[in-house]
């Protein structure tokens, strides 16, 4: 069903209730880690189906009005075959007098609610994020279309020199040509730069992707489509800390609790974790930082509440080891053993021995 029709149907429901002098209400899935389950066969976080109901009362009247007006905006944007960034949608609301959003997080929340209600991607609502999608370098040709002529255009990701190809916000129309053996998804831009500079992709015949922190939806979708279509394995290389393990790797692999309704398409279930693992800290004698109280709490919380961690013994052991060590490590820490130690020793050794990886 087209999104526009979904919007009309929901509005019709609300109006019918009002005409019958009943309180109208809208139902949204609860967007949190507590409302997802993980089945390795499915490969991603699925909604458990808990819903919250927004019934029209005095205390909800403002949000209710804002939700309807945001739905109207979405319909308008879709009708005109246009798009609005999340920031632009926030500014449009400034025309809504008392119903305007004071800060963008408020409009983002309403937008995410609508997205979840209709179980669509926000791009399908006509809204796009501001965020960058990530960068790519290596053995890959991306086939895109020219925005004016709509003709196919080939982008060779080996030809960016010391720079890189930027993943666009929407990736559904892209096609790929590649002879690479694997995709290496990297947390930090710094490590990505080092690998690009030394033509690491040439030596190992791979595609390098810089996620720049938590991977955006576009970045996740890009890796997913590329790996699915070209049957490429995906290896992940992050800092050795809970942010790298869960916010970055876990989101890339199985999705998030916040936007679980789209996880099915916006995650990479086949992704594997290369490092840096807590065991690597010991094996490579890496310089570390002390875990803060919040980190320790985060580790405990993951053991207790994260459906992904609960599924894998290996991850549980890794977290327990990190808690015991009380230390975390950064990707750049290998520089202690020489600037190119990571290229010459660490990555080759890890790629050879998959037993040291985490699922």
């Amino acid at each position, binding site marked *: 069903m087209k999104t526009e029709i979904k919007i009309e149907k929901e509005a019709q429901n609300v*109006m019918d209730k009002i005409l019958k002098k009943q309180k109208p209400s809208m139902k949204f899935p609860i967007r949190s880690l507590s409302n997802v389950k993980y089945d390795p066969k499915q490969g991603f976080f699925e909604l458990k189906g808990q819903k919250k109901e927004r019934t029209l009362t*005095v205390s909800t009247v403002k949000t*209710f*009005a804002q939700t*309807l007006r945001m739905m*109207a905006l979405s319909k308008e944007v879709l009708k005109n075959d246009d798009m609005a960034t999340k920031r632009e949608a926030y500014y449009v609301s400034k025309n809504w007098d008392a*119903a305007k959003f004071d800060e963008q997080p408020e409009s983002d929340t309403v937008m995410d609610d609508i997205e979840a209600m209709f179980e669509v991607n926000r791009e399908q609502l006509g809204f796009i994020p501001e965020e960058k999608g990530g960068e790519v370098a290596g053995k890959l040709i991306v086939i895109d279309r020219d925005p004016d002529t709509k003709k196919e255009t080939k982008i060779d990701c080996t030809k960016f020199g010391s720079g890189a190809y930027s993943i666009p916000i929407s990736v559904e129309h892209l096609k790929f040509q590649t002879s690479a053996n694997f995709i290496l998804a990297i947390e930090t831009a710094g490590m990505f730069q080092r690998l690009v500079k030394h033509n690491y992709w040439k030596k190992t015949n791979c595609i390098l992707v810089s996620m720049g922190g938590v991977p955006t939806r576009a970045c996740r979708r890009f890796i997913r489509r590329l790996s699915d279509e070209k049957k490429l394995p995906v290896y992940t290389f992050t800092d050795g800390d809970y942010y790298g393990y869960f916010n970055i790797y876990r989101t890339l692999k199985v999705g998030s609790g916040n936007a679980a309704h789209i996880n099915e398409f916006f995650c990479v279930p086949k992704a594997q974790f290369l490092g840096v693992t807590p065991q690597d800290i010991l094996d490579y004698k890496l310089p570390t930082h002390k875990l803060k109280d919040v980190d320790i709490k985060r580790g405990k919380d993951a053991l207790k509440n994260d459906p992904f961690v609960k599924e894998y013994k290996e991850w549980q052991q890794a977290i327990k080891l990190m808690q015991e060590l009380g230390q975390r490590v950064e990707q750049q820490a290998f520089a202690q053993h020489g600037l190119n130690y990571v290229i010459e020793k660490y990555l080759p050794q890890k790629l050879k021995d998959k037993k040291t990886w985490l699922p």
Partner: protein
Amino acid sequence: MTQTKLTDIQPKKEEKTKAEEFAKELRSVSVSEFFEKNRHLLGYDNPTKALLTVVKEAVDNATDATEEARILPDILVKIERLTENRFRVTIEDNGPGIVKQHIPSVFASLLYGSKFHRLRQSRGIQGLGISSAVLYSQLTTGKSAKIISKISPKKPANYYELHINTLKNEPEIIKETEVSWQKDQGTKIELELEANYQKGSRSVDNYLKQVTIVNPHVTITYINPENQKIIFSRATTELPIEPKQIKPHPYGIELGILIRMLKSSKYKKLKSFLTNEFSRISSSIADEILKKSNLEANAQSSRIARQEAENLLKAIKETKIRAPPLDCLSPIGSELLQKSLKKELNVDFCEAVTRSPSVYRGFPFQIECLIAYGGSLESDKPVQLLRFANKVPLLYQQSACTITKAVISTKWNSYGLSQSKSSLPTGPALILVHIASVWVPFTSESKEAIAHYPEILKEIKLALQECGRKLGIFIRRNKKVAQEQKKKEYITIFIPHILTGLREILNLKQPQENKIEKNLKEILEKSRQ
């Protein structure tokens, strides 16, 4: 350790002589001389307070005198500025006047009075007040006090100019004459003193205003140093109930007092001493006390030894004796208190309570409380606390007073006023507490704060709670009304946006829109929560 030699501890000859020298300097200090040096004990710490204390003492005397004579008091207070820091204070009443031979002692001898040895609710007690004002005037200006008093239209008025001989605590008559005075009766006193006049919560202006709140039958005409005439007129022409004099209750008596009473009583036999000098000692209770203390009913009161007196007191404390009579007090009354306050202040809420009399240390006392809220009272500030003892405003030493302690230890948050720990609540409110008693336990002679007796504290708290509950209901009701109003506005603001949203999605037509708007209002108003 070295042993002390015997000679070391024997007094030396020179020391003896010194002691004798000291002895030459020893002499008794007269009360007036003592207060000359310790004027702060009587409320003359600084020039601002001195002005207030002088007015207060004279007004107390005037109201006491008129009330006892069952006359509606008309009091004139006039303050003239002579130089920057010198003032002339004149206070005139329409009371019964003072007989000629008493005038010098009343005004120019400390601790001369009729009220100290009796137990009766009155403003002044010690006989210190007006004569200490005269003393202060004399100390700061050297001028004499000018007094006119007239006891009947048929008799001439007596005019005196008086000084106090501080060494002897005796009046010195500077001038004494008969004058004509157009008043039928009354007393007028004129004093010159060094002082400072200022406005504010502890000003004479505020003091007089408070006096009229708790003395609704009094009219005060006030001429301030700026020569403005302010009239605080009475709210009622009914005189308050006359307080009754009572005998001391045995539970409130201390050994020294008991011994003094035994020595000086006109009842020579011990049993008749007990039954006549105290309240609530019947013949049978007297027998019980005598039996417990092993004393004879016919024993001579004046010859009871110290040890016997102690046994007697012990027996008294061990004997069950009824509480003292409680009908001896004269409260203001909750209705009159409210009426009187509303006359002076514009408020939205006013509630008062007069508690039943109670007893501390054998003395009857009674608590009254009033709480006013809103109107012209300032919000965002600590509440105004007005303290009164026997209808006299207490303006100083608020933090030392048990009334303040009671207010602070009451939980005002549950009555709708915000309050942080161990401080007065804040909000547009006024709290008034009055204690009436035959003997108000002040913390000092300047009579500014009430001592912490648990019985008194408890009664004040109960009175505050009683008024507080009603205040809480009022504030909550007000808040609810305000919230409903706010919600109503909220609904009218956002209904158009729901309509716009629906219109844009569904292309609504005007009649449809009108119906939805009407229904939405109905739905939302029904679901107020």
